[in-house]
Structures are given as C-alpha cells and as structure tokens.
C-alpha cells in the first residue's frame, strides 16, 4: 500500500517539476531536487492535497524533514479517512 503511494507521489513530483528523471527515496529532501525549495514547497503540497483530497496543516508541513515524513503523513490521513 505504502509503496504504491510512494510511486504515486513520485509521479506528482515528476509532473510538478516537469522532470521525468526524479527518483524519490525516503531520505530525499529539498536539497536533492533542483527546483524544490521553500518557494515551490507550498505549491507542491497544494498539488498533493488536491490529488488525495486531504488537508495539511501548516505545522504538519513545517514538520516534514524528508519524503518519508511526508508520505507517512499522507498515508495516515488516507487511512483515517477510510
């Protein structure tokens, strides 16, 4: 389930940054992707929220240290929705 989610998120990233070469891992951070910085971060979060019809709070967004934290958070939200 989580692996599937991971691949979906990767697709969102690839579409958002218009770069099909992006490979996400658990430890990927903003440092690792050229266009991913604080300016694009919230837009990207918005994209993910729309995709899964979920809602991040600002504190949650600030807490993400890497892709693992983010995917865990999405996973949790989707689970609790069911």
């Amino acid at each position: 389930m989580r692996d599937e989610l991971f691949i979906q998120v990767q697709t969102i990233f690839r579409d958002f940054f218009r770069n099909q070469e992006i490979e996400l891992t658990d430890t990927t951070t903003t440092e690792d992707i050229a266009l991913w910085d604080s300016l694009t971060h919230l837009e990207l979060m918005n994209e993910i929220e729309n995709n899964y019809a979920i809602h991040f709070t600002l504190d949650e967004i600030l807490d993400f240290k890497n892709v693992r934290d983010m995917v865990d958070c999405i996973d949790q939200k989707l689970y609790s929705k069911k």
Partner: protein
Amino acid sequence: MPFNSISYILFFSLVVTIYYLLNQNYRKHFLLLSSLFFVGYKNIESIYLLLATILFTYYLAKKIGSTIDIKKRKYLLRLGVFISISTLFLFKYIDIPASFGFDSNNLIFTLGISFYTLQNISFLLEVHSNRLKTEYNLIDFSVYSTFFPKFIMGPITIPQDFLPQINSDKPLSSNLTIGIQRILLGLVKKIAIADSLAEYVKFNFEKNHTPVGFTALLISYLFTIQLYFDFSGYSDIALGSAKALGFDLKENFNFPLRSKSITEFWRKWHISLTSWLTKYVFYTVSYRFRKLKKAAIPIALLVTFLLSGIWHGVGICFFIYAISHSLYMIIEYFTKSSRLEISTKIPTKIHTLLSIFITFNLVSLSFVFFRATSINNAFHLIKNVFSFKNFLPTNWKIDVFEHIAITSDQFALFNLFLLIITLSLFLLFEKKIYSIIINPKTNYIFIFILILILMIMGTYSNPEQFIYNRF
C-alpha cells in the same frame, strides 16, 4: 566586550579554561554565569532586563506547554509574541533607555535584543506547536537564551538545535582546536580585511567623494565584500567560541558570494535569519494565501522582505533594499523554468560564471542602499554607476586606484593592492580554508599564516564596530 577586542580574548580564554576544569554537571551553570557577566559587566541594568525577559518567556512557555485548551494556548502564544515584539520596539526603535540617560551602545541588553527576541519568539512558537520534544528547566532555557557567543549578533538559534546540546557530553579537545582555528580566521576576516576595507568604503560613499562609472561599481563591490567579511568574520568568531565550548551553532554563511541566483543567495547569506523568516513568516503568509495559487508567493515574499527590512532598521533605505530583493526573487520565481531551459543550452562553466557575476552585481547594487547614510547618497552613487558615457576610466591609476585608495601616496596604493590580493585569495580559496578550519587536526602552518596576516594587516589603532552591531 566586542569580539574584536583584547578584553573578549581574555574573557574567553578564562571561560574556556575554567569550563574544561569543571565537572560536566556544573558546566551549564558556569556558562550561564559567564554569559550574565558578558551581558552585565558594563551595567548591571542589562542583567535585570535580561532576567525579566527570561523569566517571562520561560513561565509563559511552560504555561503554553501545560495548557490543553487550544484557544487558550493560542491566546497565551499571542500574548508572548506581542510582549516580545513590544519590548523590541521600545528598546530598539523608540530607544527607551536613552530617555533614562543610557547610551544604548553600552547597554548590552539593547545590543542583542534584535537577535534574541526572534529567538524567544521561536521558542514560544515551537512549544506551542509541540515541535519541541526536549525536556528543559529554567537553567537550560537561560543558557539557551543568554549563551554569550551568540548573544549580540546571533546566529539566531532554534531551541531544537541547541537545548539537546546543553546536557550532552562533548568531546572537548578536538572541539577546542576547531574553535580556536575558527576564531583566528574570524579575526583575520574582521580585523585584517573588513576593517581595512572600511576606510576606503567610508570615504568613497561620502557624497563629495563618490566616484563615477566603473570605480563607483567597484566601490559597491567592495562594500559587499566588506559586509561579507565583517559579518561572516563575526559568525566565525561566534561559532568558533561556541565550538570550543562544545556547542555547534547553525552556520550563518555558506559561501554566499558564489550564488548563482538571488534565491540561492538568500539560502546562503545570514542563514539563521533567513530560515527564521522562512519558517515563521514566509510559510505562514503563503499558507494563508495559498488559495490564490501563484499570487501567494509574491505576497509572502514581499511581506517577508519588508519585515526583514524593518528588523534591520526603519528608514527609506532599508525599505528600498527590501523591495529590491523581493522584486529580484519574484522575477526569479516566475522565470524559474525558463531559466533552467536556457541553462541547458549554454556550457555549464560559462553559465555558472555568468550567473554568479549577475547575482553578485544585483546584490551589490541593493547593498548600496544598505550602506548609504541617506537615500540621496545611495541614488547619487547608483546614478554614477550608470553614467555610461564615461563608464570606463580614462586614466586607471588616477581615476580608479588613487580614488579608492583616497590619496596618491605610494604607500596608500601599496596597502590597497596588498589588501586586494589578500581578500581575493581568501575569496578564491574560501572552501579550502573552511575545510582546513573544521578539520580537528591542528594545522600549525595555517594558524601561523593567520597570525602573520593579523600582525601585518590588522587594524588596531581605531577598530571598527561590527556592522551588524547596529541591528
């Protein structure tokens, strides 16, 4: 006790010696005492003010932490932030101490207030959002709040980075080597390079002496370099002092003059302030406006930079400085993907050099407003830079070098060249130098070279204040 003074060196040596002799359990108490001495050695009033702020913030933070009711928590947080900011306004902008007959330059409490107010606010915010997981007591919080290496000019430290270090065991001797090497490097940057540049910059920034064309541009470059060496030199001394005591503070600079864009520049320049503003201002504003999609970012950038401008000081110059950087960033934001496309078409080396050159120029032009004593002076200099008709000097010796060196004396030109060669070497090899510094193996040759530069080029007869002392 400014960092570039003998009294600081003596104070620091004494603190380090006692610190090493003490048992780990008592070290934090000793640090607190030393920091209080650092703040209050000139006037005891600073300590009273500081203790009042500490107690207020500490008990408020505890109260927020133990309150469950979300509304009440929010109310307490707002109260804390409001009072912190009010104190900042009273002491920094209205200069309350002056009306009681204090010279705010001597009141250490006021000197550090811009920096640790931000720190206290971040403490409250982190407690409020439950991000701070470390246990802390009044002593721990006081050490965090007053730690003398960062008290006057930062780096602004968030509690998660600092609190866990207070009670942990630290390997000391390797830290001491790195610390001392770093303090030496900071002193060279400040006393030998920034202070020597200060004289030229000061003279050439005066309206009567403003140069024209290329020379004016060169002067704006020199100020950017001066500010970089001044502030990063300060940060080196701060981080070095902290390191010698076993603490790792946040790096404040990451070779910013090599940035390829303004966005990158702000990730690498005064990092502790930028990340504070990004975390608490930029994200909050852009989150609030995110329904506006693309428009959210420009609004957030504008708000963030305006706040940063006000934090530096009230005035039209800082306003223009803030506006110009938000404009740079907004333009960069909207041209991001097209710029990435262009970069693939140009050879990487050329693209890198060109980007660094353009970024450095944009930064230097904006720093004219940061440095100038009045808006007229700033515009005058900018106007002179853009006097294309006689941009290139007719006589390089007279129009460029003698103008910058203030006189045409041989020795003045010699000093200018010596300085330019030294600072170029430091800029070109800054990454190499940094790697030597953070290496725990003592590098005696390097230490010797630093001492030699300090002795031959340092400014001792009339030391300059650190530029960021004003903020």
